[in-house]
């Protein structure tokens, strides 16, 4: 649904490219993860999709039509973003916050909007929080509320940038399970995350970036190989498969004792 075609991105004033010829597709109905070390360009891809950084080459398309041709609100109606950072200078209620999702549709206050918001709230499991203000939420609750807001946009795609960085194990799993359900309902989920182990369990496809290029791109058991990951992360590690669950896990080795 979302296609990156030979995308090149340069940061102004810096030598070299942030993204140097990346091509991959994000399909509906599954989770596609973009992973890689810090500085490999993961968040830059999301910003390019958001059109916050210009492309130096290549193009990004949504269902075959170029992203550039879309208006800002039109893009937001097709793709919902959960960015890395969001500011909460003013306390609003969860209900008001989720309702902001209708901005690209411009139908705040209508029945259609109310239905979309209610459905999103239920799916994300944040109904108990509706009356609370967002500054009283815990990290995990806040992330789910943000996903509820993204769902209320009723887009065909959901793009998340590091959604579980600060969450504990339970909340991580809650978020990923929710994302898996969302993907299963037909949405194209694009996930940027550096937590390979979780991604390996939930994503159908991993795009592993290294210094602005794709190092490897495929199903988790293709990507989760020791020699590939060591080269990309530049650290000795092994990949093991858990005997009970069968989950692939990256285990970094200690260099000093």
């Amino acid at each position, binding site marked *: 649904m979302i296609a990156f075609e030979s995308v090149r991105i340069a940061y102004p004033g810096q030598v070299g490219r942030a993204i140097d010829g990346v091509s991959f597709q994000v399909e509906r109905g599954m989770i596609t993860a973009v992973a890689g070390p810090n500085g490999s360009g993961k968040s830059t891809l999301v910003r390019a999709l958001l059109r*916050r950084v210009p492309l130096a080459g290549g193009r990004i398309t949504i269902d075959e039509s170029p992203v550039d041709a879309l208006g*800002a609100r039109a893009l*937001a109606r097709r793709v*919902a973003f959960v960015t890395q950072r*969001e500011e909460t*200078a*003013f306390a609003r*209620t969860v209900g*008001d916050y989720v309702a902001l999702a209708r901005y*690209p549709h411009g139908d705040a206050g209508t029945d259609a909007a109310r239905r979309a918001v209610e459905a999103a709230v239920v799916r994300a499991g944040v109904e108990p929080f509706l009356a609370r203000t967002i500054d009283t939420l815990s990290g995990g609750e806040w992330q789910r509320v943000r996903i509820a807001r993204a769902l209320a946009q009723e887009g065909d795609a959901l793009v998340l940038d590091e959604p579980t960085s600060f969450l504990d194990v339970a909340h991580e799993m809650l978020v990923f399970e929710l994302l898996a359900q969302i993907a299963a309902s037909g949405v194209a989920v694009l996930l940027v995350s550096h937590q390979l182990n979780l991604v390996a369990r939930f994503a159908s496809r991993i795009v592993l970036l290294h210094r602005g290029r794709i190092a490897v791109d495929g199903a988790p058991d293709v990507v989760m190989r020791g020699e590939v990951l060591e080269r990309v992360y530049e650290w000795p590690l092994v990949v093991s498969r858990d005997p009970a669950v069968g989950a692939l896990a990256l285990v970094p080795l200690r260099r000093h004792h």
Partner: protein
Amino acid sequence: MIAHRGWHWPAALAGLVVVAILGVALGAVSISLHDLAAVVRGDAPASVREIVLTLRAPRVVLAALVGAALGASGSTMQATLRNPLAEPYLLGVSGGAAVGAVGAMLLRLPAASWPIGAFVGAAVAVALALGVARGTSMLRAADPRTLLMAGVVVGALANAVVMIALANVPPETVRGALWWMMGSVGDATWTSVAWLGAYALIAIIALLTQAPTIDALTLGDEAAAGLGVRVERATAQAFLTAALLAAATVAAAGLVGFVGLIVPYLARGAGLSRQREILLASVIVGAMLVIAADLVARIATPPSELPLGAVTAVLGVPFFLVQLRRLR
């Protein structure tokens, strides 16, 4: 979700009407409601009619307009800058207006030209701040931090210019300039009311239509972009509308501080979170506040008047004390 009780808005409007009537009735001489009614009917004695129609009524209406405009401007600035301590005179508005008005005074232009000088000065300062922001910062021009700093730079320049100018003029001019800078609606005429009224109406309607976008902007640049906001354009638009609205109030009444800072805080404190509601509440509460402040200015130290800005400045003290306590 906090239920907005149906009577809140009508109660606020009724409060505004009551304060306005008090503003017209009280002053150096008290006008009774009976006399007010006579003025409306048209059969009041000439002196009462003069006081009410030429002095008090335009003054109260101008005060209401100034308060409404400052409330609207302040609530927009705070939301767009994502900072509850932002206020309408940022971006060099107050400094630029002072340069413009004092410049007109020094050039011995007629008093009617000072408001125009103030507005032009403020507009130039805002343009200068935007230019400084665009030209010097590595961040995008409309980034709130950049704009804030650019406004500080322009404001500092303007203050220096005003001080240098005032150091070399006769004392009477200094007194007049200082008085203007301390704010007053004492020169209100129906003409100035009409000008500010038309301007404020257009600007407030513009800000109301921008309200949903501003709501999205409060989430931060990236999240707002994700919702489909053209961030640079929307930020600049909101800023310019709010800053020029503030400039218009300075042209009409000099510098009236703290209103644009405190009123949105009160509106949010009442539990409002949508920008459209905060804007409207700020308009109403702002109008009430400035009418009340003008009333205090008129009756606190007879036979002279306090400057309006002095009265509103006093309000700043409890406000910042409250903010300090919340920081703990």
